[in-house]
């Protein structure tokens, strides 16, 4: 066991660090500064282009597809170093490289790979994900958006329905889309996967106003949207397998960030307690900070164990969900504590105090982290079933034709 980098890893980290030091500062976002979505999108695209020009885009993708053909540990090292800068990454770039490209690489035709992978890595194409629907979130396979053959000999598909929670859909070029093509089959079997040009007539995106105040999520309405069959990914009826590829990529990509406990200790240590000491002297606060710190470190070291598994060619499977489950809940608790430590100024900071604004945002944002990418409850089911081998949920809809199910 060695927690440190191997000599090769250390050399790669030094190379990454030097490149980032030279190129990242020009792209960083100012903490607390609110900029319009369009500007953030433009800056995200500019960072993608910089990465590609420097050879740091698509690290694990094969060289033949425009990537660099490196190992997962190397990609992780780069992500750790990149994470030290507050860059315009967000869902905007991560959906393309983290979700759309893996499914295209695994299930796409040669023509689709040639068309989309390098262009995405270069920052020329941006992506959104059209998966969830108003009644199909955690139960994604309950989706009702349907595609039928155009019937005019073109082989095109005509799509109708509504998607929701599609981050950045109003600003992106392409979407990954899963729809129902055969309602006579059980619900997981009649699905088909497409990539869709977001400028196609019949697609309308409406921003959703979120509790954080931002509107990066959308509802997307698809009315008689025509998609050529060349944009189908994988075989007709194999959409669920494509979805699983996307979700596995998302799960492995999410996880432990070093987020928040150490700055919180510093904050407590520098805030007077009114008794001649600091907030860090308060035993109840010490206890909460220490517990949070121990959990945060546990997440980080558990992630290190999973990365070691991946580097040995093992698939962590549902274990990856354990990190996300632990992290999302702890992150909410940590930010709640951060607000509480600030007392009344936490809910109404003085002008110029951008730090508190960030904590407020993170506390609100933490609610969605426990829902998106696998809700806490879904992850607990997966851990119980796939890690502990406990029985699956009772399913009334299994093996029943989708069209006979009640909405």
């Amino acid at each position, binding site marked *: *066991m*060695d*927690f*440190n*980098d*191997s000599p090769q*890893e250390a050399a790669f980290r030094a190379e990454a660090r030097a490149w980032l030091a030279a190129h990242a500062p020009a792209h960083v976002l100012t903490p607390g500064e609110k900029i319009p979505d369009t500007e953030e999108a433009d800056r995200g695209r500019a960072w993608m282009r910089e990465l590609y020009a420097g050879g740091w885009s698509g690290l694990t993708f094969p060289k033949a597809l425009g990537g660099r053909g490196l190992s997962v*540990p190397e990609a992780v090292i780069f992500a750790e170093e990149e994470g030290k800068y507050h860059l315009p990454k967000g869902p905007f770039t991560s959906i393309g490289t983290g979700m759309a490209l893996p499914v295209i690489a695994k299930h796409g035709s040669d023509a689709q790979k040639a068309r989309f992978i390098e262009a995405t890595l270069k920052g020329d194409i941006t992506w959104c994900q059209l998966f969830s629907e108003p009644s199909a979130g955690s139960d994604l396979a309950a989706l009702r958006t349907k595609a039928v053959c155009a019937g005019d000999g073109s082989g095109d598909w005509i799509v109708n329905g509504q998607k929701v929670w599609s981050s950045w859909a109003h600003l992106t070029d392409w979407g990954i889309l899963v729809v129902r093509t055969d309602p006579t089959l059980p619900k997981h079997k009649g699905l088909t996967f497409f990539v869709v040009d977001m400028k196609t007539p019949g697609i309308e995106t409406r921003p959703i106003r979120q509790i954080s105040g931002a509107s990066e999520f959308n509802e997307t309405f698809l009315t008689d949207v025509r998609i050529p069959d060349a944009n189908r990914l994988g075989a007709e009826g194999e959409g669920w397998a494509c979805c699983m590829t996307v979700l596995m990529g998302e799960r492995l990509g999410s996880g432990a960030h070093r987020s928040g406990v*150490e700055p919180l*200790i*510093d904050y*407590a*240590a520098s805030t007077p307690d009114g008794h001649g*000491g*600091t907030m*860090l*002297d308060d*035993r109840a606060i*010490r*206890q909460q*900070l*220490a*517990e949070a*710190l*121990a*959990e945060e*470190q*546990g*997440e*980080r*070291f*558990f992630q*290190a*164990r999973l*990365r*070691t*598994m991946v*580097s*040995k060619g093992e698939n962590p499977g549902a*274990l990856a969900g*354990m990190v996300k*489950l*632990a992290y999302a809940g702890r992150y909410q608790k940590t930010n709640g504590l951060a607000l509480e430590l600030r007392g009344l100024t936490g809910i109404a900071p003085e002008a110029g105090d951008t730090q508190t604004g960030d904590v407020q945002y993170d506390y609100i944002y933490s609610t969605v982290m426990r829902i998106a990418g696998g809700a806490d*409850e879904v*992850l*607990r*089911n997966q*851990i*119980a*079933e796939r*890690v*502990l*081998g*406990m*029985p*699956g*949920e*009772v399913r009334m809809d299994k093996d029943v034709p989708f069209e006979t199910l009640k909405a």
Partner: protein
Amino acid sequence: MNFDLSDEQKMLGEQARALLSDLSSFDRLRSLIDSGAEWDEPLWRALAEMGFLGAAIPEEHGGLGLGALDLGVIMDALGAANAAVPFMSSIILGAEAIRLAGSDAQKAAWLPRLASGEAVATFAYAEGPGPVFATGAKMAGGKLNGSKSPVADAGVADVAVVLVAGGSFALVELDQPGVTRNKLDSFDQLRAHYRLDFADAVAEPMPGAGKLDRLIDQAAVQAAFEAAGAAEACLHMARDYAMERQMFGRPLAGYQAIKHKLADVAVATELARSNAYYGGWAAESSPDDLPAAAAAARLSGIKCLELAARENLQVHGGIGYTFEANCHFYYRRERMLAVHLGNRGFWADRLLNAQPGSQGKAA
């Protein structure tokens, strides 16, 4: 980065688990309690024979000279079996205190005997209610006066390393007129505790000063391995029972109320084990990181076993409240492990104190 145990370490853990599953069944634990035995002496002899007692004792003193992670996999297995042996007292604390702070003569006299299991040691630190690491006992002119209580495994120990005034250690043979051992009513029925009174007891000062922090940091990491092993055993016990038990026409394990509870136990256990790995690595390879690593491991260990032991009994329902079911072994041991070596408040202070620039007054 290679953040995993080596194949040799995994094999060592499997050997320990195999030995314990042969020799330390729950029926065996029940019969030890019924007979009033203080420990499982045949198991101790078997552990000695396999070389486990001397795993981390230097080769020049009759051990195998292995490291903290090797010890960790053994502690994990001992925790899983809830074994009734003084491994923490004699090996993790007693032998290690002698190795860290003893004179050459003390090491030569005791380490080979501890490695072979011929002698048993304990570490006497508490002095009743109050600070867990207490220093009221006094050494003067080769004599020790004062009391230590409770002291684990003192009934079977031949020698105690005693924490004394000034924070240093004294070595005291327990079978002598100056030492009175009074057995206490121990909450963990498989881990006997004693009150030790010293009245001009013959004692040797140990020359190494300032070793307490290092000793208890290392022991905290091992306690975290023990807790993670015990928590995993509780988790599997609860899962297996829930798979078997039918309720409302299907296995109890099929209900989300049970699945979600056990998923949370699984997560807490893996986080604790991950922190223990890091603590073991730090103890071997990065001593500057040990204080923070040990404290985090200790806190996570307490947390995961508390959750696991309580929910295990809960999942078993009424049957879990019987002596015949096995939940109570872990339920009692959990409280013992939660307060040995300092409770969570103690370790929370140490974790924060190990963060650069964040010492508070409570430190």
